[in-house]
Structures are given as structure tokens and as C-alpha cells.
């Protein structure tokens, strides 16, 4: 099989989180009863007038600023003509030649989805434009049912440059884009709710060739993993055809996730001709530098900046920082706890090893987690202060996760406080020594490792509560004496 260079560009639709829809005041909510969040505007009745939602425009510009885009001073809406039951007015209000954001870039680096190292590079963003989402079609056997709750939800389309060269790079770009949108409060990007949707343009060319190969568009990709799989499937499929000397034709293909393969949806002959023209019902948007700077000042801290800060201020490894900033809610959880404890690195370890396991086991999200950052930080300070040992901390943590109680209360209620009182530990040490004469003999013959055995015995007698340092000290005094 010959080797080809893969060229990938992505078109990502992201629903903007607002209270109301793009051009009317119906609520922007997911999961309501069908056709209950509707009005004549979003159902496309003749003669209605759209009024743009300022917040959707502001958030689109914020998204553009976070992706290093230029914000042109003049922007407008256009009508994109197309005929399909999900848009009964027969056009979608979108933006054609003067979008809100132009020429951005998104950084990718680190370990890729397949485990291989990614190149450290920027993926260009051609544009981000703002449009209205369309109705949802439910395909039911011989008919289709239309639900307009989604129609008119503000929707951004983020178009990348054809800068990606592997499935891993596409996956990393999507992850970075999603992170930015979530950090900026632009969108929750929940793909299961259709808040983020992705189309892939992919072509192959022999290495060294300048011109792009024949572009194939992939649709119906419902997860980042599906994008990764579909890209790799297409690389294999197209390579095979090119190797056999066949000429590819420009076409749109769907992805069947169950079968793990793409299928033909339409060829170029059936391609759309959208006949864009300026939307006469909407006034253009003008943005002076002052307003753009005002938006710029509202930008939140981005994941990359947060990672750098976690490493510099809290002594984390780049890996720790990477894991903790995967999701904004987790990063904020850690940041909140780290400010409260003197051992932020220990806190990171507990979150990465214990808390994340607990969350994946219980299927909970970090925001619904009963263990608050305040409680976890308090528990770590209790370990540091010697109030509990690491072993007991595991028990306290499990109890915090199930009851949501603060650690001090759990320790008090369950009598888990570490015993550092010599008077209480000495009888246990003596009992352990008296009951294990052969091990005492071994120790005195020079096998110092036997101390650990005695520590274990004393811990058992104390039901895990004895202070391990104190136990070792008392054991040595007696065994050596």
C-alpha cells in the first residue's frame, strides 16, 4: 500500500448557551415536551420578524477571541436557501461573506488519543459564524415527525483550515475546541444533547504533492471517538481505491457507528446550491475597538493558562495539570481546594487517584459530587496535622463520598482519630511483642524488616488508628532494649 498524506478540515456546530433563542424569546432549553418552546418566529411562519439575541452575538465574539480570531468591524446575516422540513421558511438565517470571527487558531500538543505523541502545532480556524439551529426530525418508519423546540437555538459554526494530518490531530483539535467553549461558558458541548456536532472533510494525496486530493465529507459523527474511527476508516478505504488506480469522486458519506464503516449519502451532482443573499430583515452588526476590548476583558482564564498556573503555583507535574484541566468544573474544584490547603500537590494526588475513580464508579459528575473541595482540603490538612493517618483517610474519604459529611464529623462519629497518646499505644505494642516470640528472635538476630510485621500487628490491634511513627518508635525502644 502506498503512503498518502491525509488532509483533514473540520466543521463544528456548537449550540450557544443562552436563556432565549437566537431570533425570538422562546426559551433555549433541551428536553422539553415536543413543540412547546415555539412561536411563529422559530416555526418560520410567513411575515414574522426576527430580532437578534445580543448575548448570542457576544458569546460568539468571546469564542472567537478565545480562539485568537480577528473580529471584523462589520458583520451581517444572510439567508441560506434550502428546502427541507426542518426549516419551513425555506432558508436558514446564517452568515455568508461577513462572519463575526475570522482567522483564528487552536493549539494542540501532548499525548494523542491513540497514545502517540502529537506534534506541537496550531490548527487554523478559518471563521466562526452565527446562525439559527433547525428543527429536529424524528424519522418514524414511513413518515417523519418535526419538533421545533431546537429551531432557532443560537448555533455557531466553527470552520477549521485543512491543517490536520491524522485522526489523533482531529481528536485533539475537537477536545481543545470543546474545552475552550466550556471554559468560556459559551456552550456545555454535550454531544448527546446535540450541543456539539461535527462534520469532517478528508482527502488523501501522495506525499510531496501540492494540490489537495478529492474531498470527501463525513457526516453523522456523534462522538469524538466516532470522528477518530471514521477518519481512520476513510484513510484505509481511500488508500485502497487510490492504490488500485481508481479516481475518487467528491461525495458526502455517513458514518455507521455500529458497523464501523462509512456509506455513501450523496454525490457532488446532488450537492446543495444555497443561493445566499443578505437577510433584509436584520441590520448589520458594527463593532468598534472599544466594544471588542470590553468583550476581551470579560474573557475567562483558558485551560492552557490554568495548566501553567497549576504547575507554577501548586507544584504540580504537567501531567497532573493536564488531567485536572480536562473539564472546567474539575479545574475549578481543584483550584478551590488548592487555595484552602497547605499541600496542593497532595490534594491533586487524591483527586486524580481517588476522587476520579469514585466519580467514574458512581457515574456522578464533579459538580454533583458529595465530597466538596472544602471537605477534601480539610481532610488533607488533618493528615498533615497527624489527626488521621493515610490508611484511615481512605475510610474517611469513602464515608465522605457516600454521606457528604465533613471529615471532622466523620472522624468524631466513627472514633477514627489517630491515637498518638503513648499511654494508649504502649499496651498494644507490648501485647504484639508478647504474642510473637519467634519474630522477636528474628529481629534480634538482625532481621530488621520484621519491624514492619510488628507495625502491622499493632495497627491491627488499634483498628488502624495508631500513629505509625509512634508505633515504630515504641517498638524499636522495646525490641532494641
Amino acid at each position, binding site marked *: 500500500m502506498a503512503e498518502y498524506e491525509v488532509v483533514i478540515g473540520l466543521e463544528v456546530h456548537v449550540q450557544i448557551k*443562552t436563556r432565549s433563542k437566537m431570533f425570538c424569546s422562546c426559551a433555549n432549553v433541551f428536553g422539553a415536551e415536543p413543540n412547546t418552546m415555539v412561536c411563529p418566529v422559530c416555526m418560520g411562519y410567513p411575515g414574522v420578524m426576527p430580532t437578534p439575541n445580543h448575548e448570542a452575538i457576544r458569546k460568539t465574539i468571546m469564542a472567537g477571541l478565545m480562539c485568537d480570531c480577528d473580529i471584523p468591524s462589520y458583520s451581517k446575516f444572510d439567508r441560506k436557501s434550502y428546502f427541507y422540513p426542518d426549516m419551513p421558511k425555506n432558508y436558514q438565517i446564517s452568515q455568508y461573506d461577513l462572519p463575526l470571527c475570522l482567522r483564528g487558531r487552536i493549539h494542540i500538543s501532548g499525548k494523542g488519543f491513540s497514545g502517540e505523541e502529537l506534534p506541537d502545532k496550531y490548527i487554523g480556524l478559518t471563521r466562526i459564524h452565527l446562525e439559527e439551529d433547525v428543527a429536529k426530525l424524528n424519522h418514524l418508519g414511513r413518515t417523519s415527525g418535526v419538533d421545533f423546540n431546537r429551531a432557532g437555538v443560537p448555533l455557531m459554526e466553527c470552520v477549521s483550515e485543512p491543517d490536520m494530518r491524522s485522526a489523533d490531530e482531529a481528536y485533539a483539535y475537537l477536545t481543545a475546541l470543546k474545552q475552550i467553549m466550556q471554559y468560556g461558558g459559551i456552550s456545555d458541548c454535550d454531544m448527546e444533547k446535540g450541543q456539539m456536532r461535527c462534520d469532517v472533510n478528508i482527502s488523501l494525496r501522495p506525499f510531496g504533492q501540492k494540490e489537495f486530493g478529492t474531498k470527501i465529507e463525513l457526516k453523522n459523527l456523534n462522538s469524538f471517538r466516532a470522528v477518530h474511527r471514521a477518519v481512520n476508516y476513510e484513510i484505509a478505504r481511500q488508500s485502497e481505491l487510490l492504490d488500485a488506480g481508481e479516481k475518487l469522486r467528491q461525495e458526502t458519506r455517513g458514518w455507521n457507528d455500529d458497523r464501523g464503516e462509512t456509506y455513501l449519502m450523496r454525490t457532488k451532482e446532488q450537492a446543495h446550491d444555497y443561493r445566499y443573499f443578505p437577510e433584509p430583515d436584520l441590520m*448589520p452588526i458594527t463593532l468598534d475597538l472599544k466594544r471588542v476590548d470590553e468583550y476581551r476583558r470579560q474573557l475567562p482564564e483558558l485551560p492552557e493558562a490554568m495548566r501553567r498556573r497549576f504547575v507554577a503555583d501548586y507544584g504540580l507535574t504537567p501531567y497532573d495539570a493536564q488531567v485536572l484541566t480536562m473539564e472546567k468544573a474539575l479545574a475549578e474544584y481543584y483550584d478551590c481546594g488548592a487555595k484552602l490547603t497547605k499541600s496542593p500537590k497532595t490534594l491533586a494526588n487524591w483527586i486524580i487517584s481517588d476522587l476520579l475513580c469514585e466519580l467514574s464508579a458512581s457515574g456522578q459528575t464533579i459538580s454533583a459530587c458529595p465530597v466538596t473541595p472544602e471537605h477534601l482540603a480539610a481532610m488533607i490538612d488533618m493528615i498533615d496535622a497527624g489527626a488521621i493517618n493515610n490508611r484511615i483517610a481512605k475510610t474517611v474519604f469513602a464515608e465522605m463520598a457516600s454521606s457528604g459529611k465533613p471529615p471532622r464529623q466523620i472522624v468524631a462519629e466513627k472514633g477514627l482519630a489517630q491515637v498518638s497518646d503513648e499511654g494508649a499505644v504502649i499496651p498494644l505494642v507490648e501485647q504484639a511483642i508478647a504474642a510473637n516470640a519467634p519474630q522477636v528472635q528474628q529481629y534480634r538476630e538482625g532481621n530488621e524488616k520484621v519491624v514492619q510485621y510488628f507495625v502491622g500487628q499493632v495497627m491491627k490491634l488499634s483498628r488502624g488508628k495508631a500513629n505509625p511513627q509512634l508505633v515504630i518508635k515504641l517498638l524499636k525502644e522495646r525490641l532494641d532494649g
Partner: protein
Amino acid sequence: MSNNTNIDVGYVAQLARLDLDEPTRNRLQHDLEAIIGYIDQLNELDVGGIEPTAHAVPLSNVWREDVAGASFERSTMLQNAPAVIDDELIKVPKVLPGEEM
């Protein structure tokens, strides 16, 4: 009557998912050519040196704040639907998944 042939009614009808019989197509071809021919008079104007505008009205940034209001009753909104499913979805002929945006 102009000789304008910049419109292919058959193609536009196909884009609009309209099935036109031949007499109708011929009539529309004739009418639309006349309309376009009329508008073509604008090409006689010299617009050199005039800034292109996206809109005739000198207004911009006409928008509303993000406040959700009440929606219409579903039963009211579905009154004009040709057919419904379970009184909650608008029933349309089966369309192929994947043709949507």
C-alpha cells in the same frame, strides 16, 4: 422582453423540490426572465465609487437582551400543520436522514 437566460427554471425548481409540468415550467421561465430583465435595468446605472452596502437602512446593532418569554400554546401552533403525530409532532412525508444541515 429581454433575452435574459440567466435563469434555468428547471434547475431552480429542482432546488426548491418543486415538480413542475412542462406548460407551467415554460410559463414561469417566461415570467421570471421578464422580471429579471426588468431588474436588469439597474445595471445601466453607474455605481462606480459608491460603497457597497448590505442594507438600505443606515442602522446597525438592532438587537434584544437575552430574556426568555412565554412560548405559544402547542395546540395553537399546531393548528396550521397539515397533519400531526400524537398531537405533538408535525407529520411530514418521510425524508432521508442526512439531507439536513
